[in-house]
């Protein structure tokens, strides 16, 4: 008891002196954060605030802009093309995102299971699409999908199928875009998955093996739960990136045929280049922001990440 009492005053004294170094730490932290915050302010927050301001005007680069209140938002909300593009973006994401997550998981497991040399080779092979420009990927896939000279039609011709207008038909064009989208997104997702896999202590697997768990049981009861946060992160980032994809449809199909590949960003982009008052494009971009933010929030709420953190 006396020992405790004897120790108390110095502890109190240290507690009194603590604020000073803590304050210094905060200052350093803020200083180091400052460049990022300034850049974020200039290139993200201010444009966002300004975009909201502009969205209430019929903006003109040549005459005085006219305040129109919520008219631009009403036009966008009443535009079936905007809603169709959102729906199309969701359909596109529903194919692309799960495919990326599943394939990335498989590749990450393969890399982990392989020897170092083969693993490195596979890692590099998977990562290559990530550093290839979307423009070049688009051009390569256009050549693959060509009607008469394309690789894909040549391949299906070998097994007796007729040439298909992959990009020329409204029924196949969106599906055709999913392949390059998955290919481009796979590399980064695989590496992030691999990093997550390598973070799981080997002792968990060893204990499970001793208890007689097979590969499937180890995957379901150890790997998947511990990869939950990685999966959630990839799910949201892949979803946001995929629904906003615009390079592929811009270059491969220009949004056609019959707007079947007109994804939301491409719709906004094409309207922007053909919009004398700009207001519609800005309002549509902001509404897309709201839609994406809302859907991301839903994903976060549905898939709770905290249990995995505690585990």
């Amino acid at each position: 008891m006396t020992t405790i009492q004897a120790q108390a005053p110095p502890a109190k004294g240290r507690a009194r002196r603590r604020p000073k170094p803590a304050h210094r730490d905060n200052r350093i932290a803020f200083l180091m954060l400052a460049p990022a915050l300034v850049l974020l302010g200039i290139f993200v927050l201010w444009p966002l605030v300004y975009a909201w301001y502009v969205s209430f005007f019929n903006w003109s680069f040549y005459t005085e802009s006219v305040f129109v209140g919520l008219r631009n938002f009403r036009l966008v909300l009443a535009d079936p093309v905007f809603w169709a593009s959102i729906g199309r973006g969701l359909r596109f994401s529903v194919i692309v995102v799960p495919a990326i997550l599943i394939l990335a998981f498989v590749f990450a497991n393969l890399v982990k299971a392989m020897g170092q040399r083969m693993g490195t080779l596979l890692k590099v092979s998977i990562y290559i699409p990530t550093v290839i420009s979307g423009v070049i990927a688009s051009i390569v896939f256009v050549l693959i999908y060509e009607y008469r000279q394309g690789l894909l039609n040549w391949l299906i011709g070998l097994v007796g199928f007729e040439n298909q207008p992959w990009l020329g038909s409204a029924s196949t064009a969106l599906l055709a875009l999913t392949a390059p989208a998955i290919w481009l997104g796979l590399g980064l997702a695989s590496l992030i998955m691999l990093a997550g896999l390598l973070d799981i202590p080997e002792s968990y697997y060893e204990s499970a093996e001793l208890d007689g768990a097979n590969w499937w049981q180890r995957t379901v009861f150890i790997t998947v739960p511990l990869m939950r946060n990685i999966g959630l992160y990839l799910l949201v980032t892949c979803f946001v990136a995929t629904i906003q994809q615009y390079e592929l449809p811009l270059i491969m199909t220009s949004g056609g045929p019959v707007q079947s590949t007109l994804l939301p960003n491409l719709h906004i982009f094409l309207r922007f280049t053909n919009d004398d008052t700009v207001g519609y494009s800005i309002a549509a971009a902001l509404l897309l922001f709201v839609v994406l933010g809302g859907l991301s929030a839903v994903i976060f709420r549905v898939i709770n990440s905290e249990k995995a953190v505690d585990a």
Partner: protein
Amino acid sequence: MRSTRRLTGGLGVVAATALVLAACSGTPDGGPEGSASGEEVPEGVTEVTFWQQSFTDEENEWYESVVDSYNESQDEVHVTLTAVPGDAWEQRMTAAQAAGNAPDIRTMNYGGVRNAALTSQITPLSDLISAEAWDDLQENVRGSVTVDGEEYAYPMLVEPSAILWYRTDLFEAAGIDGPPTTWDELVADAELLTNDEVFGMRLAQNAPDMSWSTWGYQWNVAGHLPISDDWSEGMATEDYAPLLQAFQDLFASGALPPADGVGYPDASTFGDGQYAMMANGSWAASQLLSDYPDLVPNVAVAPMPSFDGQSGQTTATLGGWTWAVDGNTEVAEEAATFIEWALGGDTENVVPFFEATQFSKVSPRVSVAEAISALPDVDTVNPWNAVIQEEIVPFAQPEPGYPWNVSLAMGEAIEAAMQGTPVSEALAAANDKINTEIANSQLAGTGS
């Protein structure tokens, strides 16, 4: 933890949205896409910036030479030329306008002049260019750049947008006597000519290209445009059904293939031998003559067929390019002076352009047209020139001046019909879109 993750996710979404907004931000002049001249502007000299849409090397060389000649001819104004690829034009121009650094002079097609004038994007030039230069223009072409009594751009060239180019050797092999004179014949011939190597017909293959390349057929089949003259009411009526049906039949038969990867104005796939017939503008002549000389003896031209089989009807519009001065420019006088010097002055400045493009385009200036017709070798250089001048140009209509979204609605209807949507449904959708555009852009009463 949850709140941190929410914040991270939220910021991710904000950053992603910033990318959307970034598309709306300004971009600097020049850049990898364009070819800015890069020369230094002498001190004390007024700079006039000029963006031209880049099409062919021969045209680009003429632009450079005429700008250089003007810069050397005097020491008060320096014109700085930038060639911008056609597919990047709209994006770069809108971004430059947003950033307040649009070029002082830009090339502009006839169809864009009225809308640009009504929205003050371009400056009236009536008083800045001499009456002599205006009076030298053909009356109908002058009308295409005149809005409410003021001229807003100076015409550079006109060219019919739709001509039937066909392979005489393939026609002969298939036992077809000559070019089709009706759209029914066109569809039948195209099906007959289609085999494993060659498609029967090439038309515009996507909605944006269909929007403008079919203006002539739209005139022909319906006798009117899909919006009333005062732009107050959509008129995409059943009158257009035969046109949409023709696209649908051609595509269904396999004679009209899915997109071949190049835009309507590009004749390269025809030059490569992939087609027996092609609809294209007169500009295709210079591409075929330059890049496919071996094919030239087997290629002939004819007017695009009409729907009732009568000749001498409108099946093409007279499109082409003008030079316009930006509505915000501070050097309008200097810009107009240069335009007059290059396009409206000495014919020697502009005739080389038509020579370089192998007479595949027509000058709207009477004096220039006379100078060109006096040249001894026009028909030798361009073997299709006589047919184009005599059988197509006289019947072509000027490009319509209504906003692009009206044209696009019709282009989308034709594309939808081609892809199998019932023709009536496609036309009804087009009419709805046109009416929505009239309401949204408050077009009623602003027509020509």
